[in-house]
């Protein structure tokens, strides 16, 4: 009995740590998400049974992968008795099973996780489908978890995932890491999904699940593919999330950056974020996430709001505006200039932006304007 308890603990731990890796490899070997999911569960069920008899194998992950694969072939064979269209598939999987022992080495397995991420974040899938699929397949969240986090119903999310998997199958979206020349565009899509998940979690009080998953995804990406913008995005998320405890008052009201109790900021995450920003900024081509992270880093380094290096922040907004010329970034730059050069200068810039009309309905622009007018009256 004790031995069984011990074993079920081992398998539980392994499930938490390895199930998505095993799944990612099974998708490659079996060529189908649903079949891989079933096979992964079959493999863990078989582990509970067989390991109590024979002991835990030397390489549990490899055991789970090959067991899952043979269970899937069994399933297909059984189904082929009733559905002749599956006979060919069973034979194909069988033939492949004997030839690809070398495809289970470590480098291949790491690539499988990237393959899974790039497939779930494929731009030929609708953005909300990319998000749901990534949280389900890469992070292993349940449909119910995802629905709760996005204030949607579980059937809505489930349908989104089913449709996305159908498109992957029917339009033949391949299970691969993009080539070097396609990487920038495809990585942008992955980072956009990660940041969307993060922002959804950031804006809701119950959103810690999502910010946690986004940061976990960010870490996984930087580990597998340490591109500058991936580092920049992870840094940005860590630096923003480091302020979570200070961002809302005891009564649940939002607290602005200059009024936050900075002793509540998570110093560990700030340290990790700052180190990542430094690495990201070494790239010759600066990306928008890295520059936004650098701005967040300047705030994080200021022990008080008054000690903020506004000159540096304005300089970073100048860079950001060149990369991404949008009126909202222009507005943020104007607010930073107001801090550096005084409210009247900032107000003139904001009025000029508002006069162009694009931000006429953007509430934060009017709030920033009112705030500067208040400060001018107080001078």
């Amino acid at each position, binding site marked *: 009995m004790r031995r069984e308890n011990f074993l079920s603990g081992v398998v539980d731990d392994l499930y938490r740590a390895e199930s998505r890796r095993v799944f990612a490899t099974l998708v490659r070997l079996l060529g189908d998400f649903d079949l891989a999911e079933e096979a992964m569960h079959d493999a863990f069920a078989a582990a509970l049974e067989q390991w109590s008899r024979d002991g835990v194998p030397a390489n549990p992950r490899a055991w789970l992968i090959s067991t899952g694969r043979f269970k899937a072939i069994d399933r297909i064979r059984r189904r082929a008795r009733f559905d002749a269209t599956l006979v060919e598939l069973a034979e194909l999987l069988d033939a492949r099973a004997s030839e690809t022992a070398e495809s289970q080495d470590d480098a291949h397995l790491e690539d499988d996780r990237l393959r899974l991420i790039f497939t779930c974040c494929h731009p030929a899938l609708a953005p909300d489908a990319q998000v749901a699929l990534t949280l389900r397949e890469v992070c292993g969240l349940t449909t119910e978890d995802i629905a709760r986090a996005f204030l949607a119903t579980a059937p809505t999310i489930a349908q989104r995932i089913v449709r996305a998997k159908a498109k992957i199958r*029917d*339009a033949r*979206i391949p299970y691969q890491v993009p080539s070097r020349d396609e990487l920038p565009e495809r990585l942008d899509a992955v980072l956009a999904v990660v940041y969307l998940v993060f922002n959804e979690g950031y804006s809701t009080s119950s959103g810690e699940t999502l910010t946690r998953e986004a940061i976990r995804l960010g870490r996984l990406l930087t580990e597998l593919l340490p591109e500058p913008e991936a580092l920049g995005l992870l840094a940005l998320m860590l630096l923003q999330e480091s302020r979570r405890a200070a961002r809302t008052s005891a009564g649940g009201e939002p607290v602005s950056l200059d009024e936050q109790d900075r002793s509540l900021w998570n110093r560990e995450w700030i340290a990790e974020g700052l180190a990542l920003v430094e690495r990201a900024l070494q790239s010759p081509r600066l990306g928008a996430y890295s520059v936004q992270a650098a701005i967040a880093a300047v705030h994080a380094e200021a022990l008080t709001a008054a000690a903020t290096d506004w000159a540096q922040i304005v300089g970073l907004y100048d860079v950001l505006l060149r990369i991404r010329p949008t009126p909202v970034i222009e507005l943020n730059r104007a607010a930073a200039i107001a801090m550096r050069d005084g409210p009247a200068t900032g107000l003139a810039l904001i009025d000029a932006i508002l006069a162009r009309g694009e931000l006429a309905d953007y509430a934060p622009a009017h709030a920033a304007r009112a705030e500067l007018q208040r400060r001018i009256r107080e001078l």
Partner: protein
Amino acid sequence: MKYLCLIYHAQSMLDAISPAEFSTMQEGLRAFLEELQEKGQLVDVNRLKPVRTATTVRVREGKLSTTDGPFAETKEQLLGYLLIEASDLNEAIRIIARFPPIRFGSVEIRPIEDSLYV
């Protein structure tokens, strides 16, 4: 002169057809195509996979954009077609991204069904 004939259907119409009517239609289709083939008037015919498998590709200022669905703008009109062979959707997108007119319009990529008949 060659003519491209585009076939449109509403899913709701298809769903409303009875199985008997449907198989009559399929038989008629087979006979119709055979006849055209014999007369040398059938150049090519294909059935597309459902519209939910569509992907739209554009290139603007050198940047490739790929989106889910058939999203030609209302002002865009059908100009022509390419029937290509590619191992998967990524390869199809790679090919279409190099198609010079893509810089001025959009291309909807639709996989073709293995079989003409359901």
